[in-house]
């Protein structure tokens, strides 16, 4: 059993739990956080959308975005859970940085802002990272475990901050706050008539005078976004730093692993530190230890004299062996492509869903060894 993840957690201050949706990222992040707290670390788990029963079990069921709560329990260190909510994170950012209450309200009422903060692709990922760097700078915790948003594609999490940064690029913003832009497309002199016609048509199709709203938004926010590129740069530096470890969570399914493979490749291109892979809900092949199939038959016949009952038990064993064979092949071929120093943990599919502290602890031997 692998215990290599133990070292990864011991030697890093920031753990990012990444992977595509529905593979157990949140559960893994919570299990890592719990382990850190048991080992004496002041731990915070930044989570996005935990299952209701798990949230209730940790005592954070009522938590709203941006709030935090200390988990009660027998910890050598401490365990805090914090909920991320992108809308409130953006609002908090505006509240913090708006120079006057008037400007703050103007931004909060701006339709473009409302759209940006709720639906702009990547803003949730960006905000997760923004909150991470704040927790890091705050110094209250010596282990920060961050659960990444449920993206369609695991990679979105890595690319989103850059995309948001490009979007809020100062050069572009400068252009948008020019007075003639603020008046709308009709007065944009640099464009010819056809282009202007097209753009107006686009505006009609979307239902808002986008340009005016955008311009107004950036004018109000111009102070805030001045240092934006630098800030994003710093966040990337933190993600690439020696104290950060990415843990990729994947289930041993074809499509999930195809995405995970792409994610790994992209991580090394971006020089992001992939330190561990967790295969979750895996099935393991049975390794025979010296006995023959005939001996097993005899043993089963002795223990379960009822032939039908015995057949049902053995049939079920065989069905799971089929699953296990497939999982083994896929995990092995995935493993072969990983750089050697990436730790690999295999967590079995349990006989129940993990929804409380003792459930999370069942993962521990498989993640960290005995």
């Amino acid at each position, binding site marked *: 059993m692998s215990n290599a993840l133990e070292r990864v957690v011991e030697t890093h201050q920031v753990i990012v739990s990444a992977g595509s949706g529905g593979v157990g990222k949140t559960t893994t992040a919570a299990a890592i956080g719990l382990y850190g707290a048991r080992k004496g670390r002041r731990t915070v788990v930044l989570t996005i959308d935990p299952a209701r029963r798990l949230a209730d079990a940790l005592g954070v069921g009522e938590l709203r975005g941006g709030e935090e709560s200390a988990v009660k329990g027998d910890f050598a260190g401490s365990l805090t859970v914090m909920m991320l909510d992108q809308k409130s994170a953006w609002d908090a950012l505006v509240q913090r940085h708006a120079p006057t209450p008037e400007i703050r309200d103007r931004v909060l009422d701006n339709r473009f802002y409302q759209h940006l903060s709720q639906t702009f692709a990547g803003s949730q990922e960006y905000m997760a990272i923004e909150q991470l760097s704040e927790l890091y700078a705050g110094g209250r915790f010596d282990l920060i475990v961050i659960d990444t948003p449920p993206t369609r594609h695991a990679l979105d999490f890595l690319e989103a901050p850059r995309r948001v940064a490009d979007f809020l690029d100062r050069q572009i913003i400068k252009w948008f706050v020019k007075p003639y832009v603020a008046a709308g497309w009709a007065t944009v002199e640099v464009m*010819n008539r056809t282009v202007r016609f*097209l753009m107006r048509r686009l505006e009609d199709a*979307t239902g808002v005078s*986008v340009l005016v709203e955008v311009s107004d938004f950036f004018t109000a926010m111009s102070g805030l976004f001045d240092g934006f590129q630098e800030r994003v740069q710093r966040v990337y530096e933190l993600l690439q730093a020696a104290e950060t470890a990415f843990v990729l969570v994947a289930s041993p399914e074809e499509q999930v692993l195809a995405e995970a493979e792409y994610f790994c490749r992209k991580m090394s291109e971006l020089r992001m530190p992939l330190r561990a892979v967790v295969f979750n809900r895996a099935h393991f092949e049975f390794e025979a230890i010296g006995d023959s199939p005939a001996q097993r038959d005899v*043993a*089963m016949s002795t*223990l*379960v004299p009822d032939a039908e009952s015995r057949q049902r038990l053995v049939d079920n064993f065989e069905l799971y062996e089929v*699953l296990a064979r497939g999982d083994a092949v896929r995990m092995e071929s995935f493993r072969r492509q990983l750089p050697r120093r990436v730790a690999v943990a295999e967590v079995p599919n349990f006989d129940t869903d993990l929804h409380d502290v003792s459930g999370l602890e069942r993962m521990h031997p498989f993640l960290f060894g005995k």
Partner: protein
Amino acid sequence: MKQNDLLQRRLLFVVGKGGVGKTTVASALALEAARRGAKTLLVEVDGVGRAAQVFGVSVRPPGEVAPLTPSLFLMNVEGSAALAEYLMMTVPVKRVLQGVLNSRIYQYFVAAAPGLKELMTIGKIWFEANRTDTAGGGVWDIVVVDAPATGHSLQYLAMPQATFDTFTSGLVHREASRVVELLQDPERTGVVLVTAAEEMPVNETIETYRRLRSDLHLPSALLVVNRFHQTALRSADVEALERRLESEASVASREFVDEVLRRAREELGWVQINERYLQRLREAVPLRTVVLPFLFSEEFGLDEVKRLSAQLAAEVAETKARPAKGGKA
């Protein structure tokens, strides 16, 4: 509401949380529609090529049609490509247009305009569902959409109504109203909710059902509970073996027996979880429900999709068969 055959409708949206088997169910439905002779388009939205992977074809650029069987075709629809296509169709001066599409300001606009990509995606799907050939007949008998993960899907499905509400007259209003009309018509459109019978997906499904009904007024047509563990095992099998093991001092082939027991507990555990959440679904989502089994296979591929397709077929075909194709052309 008239309860007509699901596959007689023109447009099916298959929605659900990531990882529950949306692509599998969408593919299975599309296969069955095609098998019954309907010219079928399977649409993947903003896809990473999952449907293409299932059918073993290479991923095509957005908007391109890939043939899967003689009557089944696959297309990836993506908002900005759909917008570009729309502009290409409606704007005569291509040279100018290319310049616009490549400009940073245009790309900025597309990224910033609220809901534009979602609207264009639905617009493109609507266009395909209504597309006619030169003879005036419909190009597709049915369009099956493998929608993005639920949160995103609802954003897409809400857009036409939002647009319709924003504009009270004019071209955009008329276009949006035609889209809304199709989406809300239970004769022509159906939303298929796919879920696994586990906590997270079930909570999300209940919420989605509620929103489809009360906010979006879209016709939910079918609930598919996927990956449902059904077993011949009985808990008595496990209990008897457990009791026996407790009383025996030494057991031959102990590792094997322990593993038999562990796997039996695992299976019974998931049967129990699945049943509990199916019960919750039945209480909260009063829809026609199809339960598809968890498949024990080494690899989940086209054969498995075909097996599920056959099961779905039996369940959705209770009403009359599709009339001969000539009937509606």
